């Protein structure tokens, strides 16, 4: 049997211009990697939106990171104060990572 390790799957939905800030936080708590996925459109309390590159300011993005429980907790502590002003959505789920000791 191949070895798997339990890790957290962190999903941060955030305005595209703020992605560098989030990546900064990830690095600050020493999370080893992240992946960025573009969101096309959506809706919430502030109304509906579509991605348009002309004003990139209203585009949204998902930052996905796999991390250990400890680092996840540190990240949450670091990001939580920004949640309201940045209008982010931060979810954490459980996953098994195959050969994932390094994360």
């Amino acid at each position: 049997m191949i070895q798997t390790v339990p890790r957290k799957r962190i999903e941060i939905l955030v305005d595209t211009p703020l992605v560098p800030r989030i990546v900064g936080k990830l690095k600050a708590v020493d999370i080893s990697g992240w992946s960025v996925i573009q969101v096309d459109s959506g809706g919430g309390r502030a109304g509906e939106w579509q991605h348009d590159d002309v004003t990139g300011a209203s585009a949204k993005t998902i930052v996905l990171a796999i991390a250990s429980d400890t680092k996840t907790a540190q990240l949450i502590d670091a990001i939580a104060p920004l949640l309201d002003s940045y209008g982010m959505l931060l979810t954490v789920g459980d996953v098994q990572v195959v050969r994932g000791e390094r994360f």
Partner: protein
Amino acid sequence: MIADTLTSPVILFFVLGFVASALKSDLTIPEAFAKAMSIFLMAAIGLKGGVEVSKSGNTAEVMVAAAAGLALSFLLPVLAFALLRSVGKLSKVDAGAVAAHYGSVSVVTFVTAIELLTGEGLSPAGYMVAVLALMETPAIISGLMLVRKGENMSGERSTTPWHEVLTNASVMLLVGSFVIGAIAGSDGFATVKPLFDTGFRGVLCLFLLDMGLIAARRLMQSRKMTLRLVILAILLPLVNGTIGTVVGTVIGLDIASAAALGILAASASYIAVPSAMRLALPEADPGIYLSMSLGVTFPFNIIFGISIFAALAQALG
């Protein structure tokens, strides 16, 4: 000139986009294509401006116009901020963010103005492209200063995004192509002219089609717009545009260039400034500044503003 404006394909495509969006049609322009067109338009006007400057080289006049542009971008937000606080009833943070937009400029409004003015025999000087580039970002600094004045800043918010302001994509591209145009001169430009000159107006049509779609969508999706804000989104370009045109005339620009300076002052950013504000003032509501600048001021300037400031410059000149 208004009549000519309203039968110009460039403006009619804007109207088509606006109508399609208002009817909730599924017509959309792929974002990558829209961004490609805006890169093309900026490269093209940058090149053309540079080539013209390489021919004339009226340095003193250029310096004066540049200084005027810088001053306008820095100072116009102060007036706007006061109006947005008092008339607009906006919070300090929102007022500062919106004010920054109105101090900065809209490249597409400028490009459309050049097209329409040139069609009337009023060609602004080539160096106005450099003025455009200079006016893009100072307003970001003043907007942030207005918000922070008298405030005890802490944490994230206290950082001004200097790097983003200075290496901003449109500034880079406008200044870069301007310099390339100035180095290459008429002869060098001749080799690339078929694309950048021939295709220009047609691309502008398709780009304004997209702007019409986006402007109307903004207007419909915005839940934060009050009547006061709509009025300000028309009042601010009128006030700023008048100041710009007067300044242009006073410092001795030709009629077309004074009109162009007026239009720059009247226009509001919807690319560089929103991104910078999202980063530097995340608490400011993007729904307000984007709806005002894209949803109201942009259409107003395209359809009425350009003609108004052209007429004003002619009356003053």
